[in-house]
């Protein structure tokens, strides 16, 4: 197992290099550059020589491989560079957005699993029951309704009718912090801002998980060993939750590999509509503003986390299914 892990980790390095090299080149090949976005206001049009000056100063005129190696070298020493747009170190720009995203995404994720797995199990156990149809209907509605539409519906239908109880947007009331208020009122303040974005995110991601859980459970329930368990006279609860569930979880785990990276990737649409100051918005703006260093740092981060996520999936397999062994 140890050797396997080491091999897996070492394999990640060339993969990461390939992924970052690709995204670095694509970013650079896109028309327009940070200097044009920054100077567009005035100088770029009045005095085009300034564009060249800035490109030269920032090293943007060097060949892409040279720039990539320089970027990689800096990253290895922990320097992610400077945001052209915000005139600040990239680590500061990302560091201030990441906590907001993690906060929202981790709770959303937790709730999604908490709701989706039991729903999937129930609709499998009671296949073709009214409950199964209801769950299926809900799941497909979640998938079919675009998140921006649900979000706006909630703003107009819930927030604006709540007499200020549920805010339309934002993450916290200005001035409400731990220094001046008790922790309970601060938590209550944060919670009321989270209700709508969480609803949108959980509603939208229920579908696939519920459906996976349901179909995998259905599959397992038809297996011989389940029939054996039942034949032994085990209680249905034990059959479902002890024998079937563990086996049915395998496919669900394998689709969870991308979760870690999607957690930091943020949700651009939800974050934008609810004015949630997360990483999704920062990343989206970085790409449109050609803020190369910021977008590269985010891509690198989600690349690393994707790989780690799938590594964890492989480890989790061993834990769930004793038949699987690595060496």
């Amino acid at each position, binding site marked *: 197992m140890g050797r396997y892990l080491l091999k897996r980790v070492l394999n990640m390095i060339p993969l990461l290099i390939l992924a970052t090299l690709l995204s670095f080149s694509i970013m650079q090949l*896109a*028309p*327009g550059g940070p200097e044009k*976005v*920054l*100077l*567009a*206001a*005035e*100088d*770029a*049009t*009045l*005095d*085009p020589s*300034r*564009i060249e000056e*800035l490109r030269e*100063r920032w090293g943007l005129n060097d060949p892409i491989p040279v720039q990539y190696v320089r970027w990689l070298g800096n990253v290895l020493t922990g320097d992610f560079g400077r945001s052209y*747009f*915000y*005139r*600040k170190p990239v680590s500061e720009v990302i560091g*201030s*957005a990441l906590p*907001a995203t993690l906060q929202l995404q981790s709770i959303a994720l937790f709730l999604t699993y908490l709701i989706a797995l039991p729903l999937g199990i129930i609709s499998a156990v009671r296949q073709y029951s009214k409950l199964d149809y209801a769950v299926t209907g809900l799941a497909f509605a979640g998938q079919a309704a675009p998140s921006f539409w649900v979000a*706006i519906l909630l*703003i*107009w239908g819930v*927030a*604006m009718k709540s007499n*200020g109880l549920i*805010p*339309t*947007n*934002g*993450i*916290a009331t*200005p*001035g409400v912090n731990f220094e001046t208020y008790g922790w309970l009122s601060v938590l209550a303040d944060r919670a009321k801002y989270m209700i709508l974005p969480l609803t949108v995110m959980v509603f939208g991601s229920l579908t696939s998980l519920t459906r996976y859980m349901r179909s995998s459970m259905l599959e397992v329930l038809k297996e011989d060993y389940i029939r054996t368990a039942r034949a032994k006279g085990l209680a249905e609860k034990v059959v479902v939750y002890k024998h079937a569930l563990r086996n049915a979880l395998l496919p669900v785990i394998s689709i969870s590999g991308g979760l870690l990276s999607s957690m930091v990737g943020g949700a651009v649409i939800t974050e*934008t*509509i*609810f*004015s*949630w*100051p*997360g990483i999704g*918005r*920062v990343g989206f*703006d970085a790409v449109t503003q050609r803020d190369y260093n910021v977008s590269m740092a985010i891509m690198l981060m989600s690349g690393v986390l994707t790989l780690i996520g799938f590594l964890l999936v492989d480890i989790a397999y061993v834990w769930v299914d004793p038949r699987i062994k690595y060496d």
Partner: protein
Amino acid sequence: MRISRRAASLLSLLVVAGLALSACGPKQDPTPPGNNGGAQNEQPAPSTGQPAVGGNLNLVLEKEPDSFNSILYTTAYGAEIVTQLYATLFEFNEKYEPTPYVAESWEMSEDQLTLSIKIREGIKFTDGTDLDAEDVAFTLEAIMHPDYTGARASSLRDVESIEVVDKHNLKIHLKKPSAPLLTNINYGILSKEAFEGYSIAEMEKAPASMDAPVGAGPYKLKEYVRGQYVVMERNPDWFMSEQYGGAPFIETLTFKIIPDSQTALAALQNGEIDRLTPEASDVAMLETQFADKLTAYNWDRNGFGYMTLNNSKAPLDDKRVRQALTLGLDREAIITGVLEDRATIPPGPIPPISWAYDDSIEVLERDVEKAKQLLEEAGFVMNESTGIYERDGEPLKLTFFAGAGATTTEAIGAIARSSWKEIGVDLDVQMIDFNAMMDNYVAPGKFDVTFSAFNLGLDPDSMFNLFHSSAGQPDANGNVLGFNRARFYNDRVDELLEKAREEFDPEKRKEYYSEFQRIVVDEAPVIMVYSNVYTDFVNSRVKGVVNFPGFGATSDYIYRWYINEK
């Protein structure tokens, strides 16, 4: 300045010519609120109460502000904050004439090459230090410094040097006379002391550029939480306070970052924000359903959306073809169909709200017959089977490029296609990524027609950037990076724009601009499509709101707004 925010959101980032100028001004005449007649129209206040200090005003920023440094920021979001933080040399009244602010008085030398400025005495920065001539010189010299990393170097291109005479006097020496000088040097004054220990190249790293800005404006920074909000509080020691009867009145300003326009609209209706300029399509709804809650301020945009015609490429190198397209375009349909009737057709390149507008210029009505006649004069023959004009067997087919994703532009493309079809011109409408369009088609001149927008600054000199041949000269790679993408080269226009730039007598300047406008209208290098009529909605609890010509309920006058009354 909010006008630039709007431009940035509507038209990507290329069109904000007046940003540097408008960012810090226009400021108003030093007269008490409500006493100004003329173009400024203040809403009748529901009560006769006198303004009193207090209250909180909620405002919206669409995106994160980039910098709080008055010479480094580039976005309209940064401008909103910078406007409150810093004092500038001059204010501008509703006729866009300079009035005293940090500069108490000023005088231009006979040869028009030296501007002497007297700095008001007793001005304090918010950190308690003095604002004097050294700070003014520091701010301007930083922009002129070769290591300067911001985007304003060219605004000071005519300045030779800055001489500090004594603590309260300085002289600005010019390379050549420059009529728009006062708008060009009007930046928020930075504190020299606050940047001690930082080179000009490293200026952005100083705390005074972001976390701890030091200015002498009506408000100071209280709290900034990235991605969420900026809270500013009243500067009780503002040096203009006495002159404006104790202004600023509102105790705190909370700028909330709300990127989605539908969310912002909901927040306005819900009373969570106090001011918004909604999309044209939402104006009527707000006016009727929220009349008791919101006050509407209508204003004409000091700029326009326009079609750039490629004057260097056949068949648009022929003036008659350009005129025909202008006469053939159904601009009424665009304004009614796309802009909900909240726009007007600009008569010429200078909007009627400007002092430089020549009122003998009238809007050209659509005239299909005359357009066809002009095309025939240019040697085109109608092909009856296709309904398209031809010359030497080549059909009159044009390509229209526009940035994808902007619904207004897409609709304009569709209307242009159908209305030019009626005059026998076939238009191919291409919607592609904005940057790709600029780099691959517009800059290298591989287009016939494209659409963009332009905002004038406080001074009509901004016409120079749009129509002077120097702004349309291709670089070594054949790309035009200036605003004159029409590649319009007219010697007389060049001459007039140059003369107007160096002429200080307003009457003479106006004459130059009049002739310029007449030539542009006749030559038709571009087609002026619309000039928006915007509506700002402000929560009715806020009083003293100034509706400034060309800029609306702009943040520049928030120091005059008030919520509480005595």
